[in-house]
């Protein structure tokens, strides 16, 4: 196999004296949909935030396409091809849907390609097209999640990081969002998905890392994880 698109080695994150992430190793290869699952407080979100530059790692190395990405200012990371859909979606509530999507392409200047991508996103999410002139704060939670994903795609990232996209959504909407994520991945996007809903994440992903107490406790193909008694007991409620 060629070198991974995202290579994480020994990543540690500290909040004051508390070590939330204690040396995480993780690889994501081009075109893969990889999931990071684990209980609440296992350090999943901290790991993702450190990858996206929102937290400064205390130790470790993050390589994007072989180039160091750790400790770079967050507004530079999107220019290196890394987009994060944050936990809680983070849409701009008083910007319209269209303006939110435009913000996703803020770091780009290829006007024609941006317009084409906007059409693509509207094609993917009809709902967003219908509501393009509406303030994002008036959308439902599921629609906001679609907007957050569409906005991240507008940056044409090489790696899409998703933080708990199913959180707080109605079951039907969760199914829809997971279908969207699968579709995005099937079109060639490399995705790292952090989820508490382990079953859904494992059904969508090719490979999985299981996080426990700030460390990766093990990793395998998603299929194998679904059958693993430890995962079944701890995360699938069986």
């Amino acid at each position, binding site marked *: 196999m060629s070198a991974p698109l995202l290579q994480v080695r020994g990543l540690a994150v500290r909040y004051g004296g508390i070590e939330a992430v204690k040396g995480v190793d993780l690889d994501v290869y081009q075109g893969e949909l990889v999931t990071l699952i684990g209980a609440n407080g296992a350090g999943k979100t901290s790991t993702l935030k450190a990858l*996206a*530059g*929102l937290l400064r790692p205390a130790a470790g190395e993050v390589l994007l396409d072989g180039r160091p990405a750790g400790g770079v*200012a*967050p*507004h*530079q*990371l*999107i*220019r290196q091809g890394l*987009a*994060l859909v*944050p936990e809680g979606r*983070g849409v*701009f*509530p*008083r*910007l319209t849907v269209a*303006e939110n999507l*435009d*913000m*996703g392409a*803020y*770091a780009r200047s290829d006007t024609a390609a941006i317009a084409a991508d906007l059409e693509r996103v509207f094609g993917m999410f009809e709902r967003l097209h219908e509501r393009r002139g509406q303030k994002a*704060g008036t959308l439902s939670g599921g629609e906001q999640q679609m907007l957050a994903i569409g*906005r991240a795609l507008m*940056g044409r990232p090489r790696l899409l990081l998703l933080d708990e996209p199913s959180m707080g959504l109605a079951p039907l909407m969760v199914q829809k969002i997971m279908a969207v994520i699968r579709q995005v991945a099937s079109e060639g996007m490399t995705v790292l998905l952090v989820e508490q809903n382990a079953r859904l994440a494992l059904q969508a992903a090719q490979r999985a890392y299981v996080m426990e107490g700030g460390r990766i406790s093990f990793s395998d193909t998603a299929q194998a994880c679904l059958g693993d008694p430890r995962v079944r007991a701890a995360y699938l409620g069986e």
Partner: protein
Amino acid sequence: MDIFLQQLVNGLVQGSIYALVALGYTMVYGIIELVNFAHGEVVMVGALVSLSVIQRLADRGLSGWGVIAAGILVSIPACMALGFAIERVAYRPLRRAPRLAPLISAIGVSIALQQLAALIWGRNFLHYPEVVARTPFHLGGAVITEVQLVILATAALLMAGLWFLVQRTRLGRAMRATAQNPAVAGLMGVDVDRIIATTFLIGSALAAVAGTLVGTYYNVGNHTMGFLLGMKAFTAAVLGGIGNLQGAMLGGLLLGVIENLGAGYLGNLTGGVIGSNYSDVLSFLMLVAVLVLRPSGLLGERSAEKV
């Protein structure tokens, strides 16, 4: 002469100056949730820099409005540099500090600037040379002077320009996004520090123009002139809903009109017990009333949205 119409005209003129200053408060508050108490002093510096320029150019046979325009053109970059420096030195290092810290820093900057201005321009009231004639125009039952017309037109132009910048340009969109969620704006590739600095630059440029207009209108200035004006403009921003641009414009105009109507009628209404000199009290009473009845201001968002 119709007192109501006259005071309405005077109020709109004064209010449009309040509005220009209020925009500076509200923009900074919208983006970093800081009441920049030094903003009134930036207006004062703008006024005094213009005064120096106007004094130097008066009596040289230049056109009066040309001289004032020169004052504005010099004071804008001076105030922008000042606003930029204030943010860098006094606020940015405290961005992650408890909220009281930058507030105290703001008051410190305000006092420091007043004293600095006293060193440069002295402590006496300075008079603006009368470079423009006070040609009166009759408007129904009221009189409006050329200076008043120019103030109204300038303020309207600047506010329209600002509205366009914020609502219709890429920079404006980034400013609004940063105000709503700086961390996510950063993820989109927005350099948040630069947006904050830009906000101070724009607010300071407006302050420079407002300072020059105030000086030209009242013909006096000194190192303390920014305090009351700043307080009034802050009141206007709160009245309209702090953080909201249209609110600052509306609040400024409203405050100016109410103050001037108060000055026109207070004496008659109270049989001379309370005179027009109480119009300042009126504006601060209004601030108290708004804070009690509608804490988010006339056009302000409900603060619950900040979750």
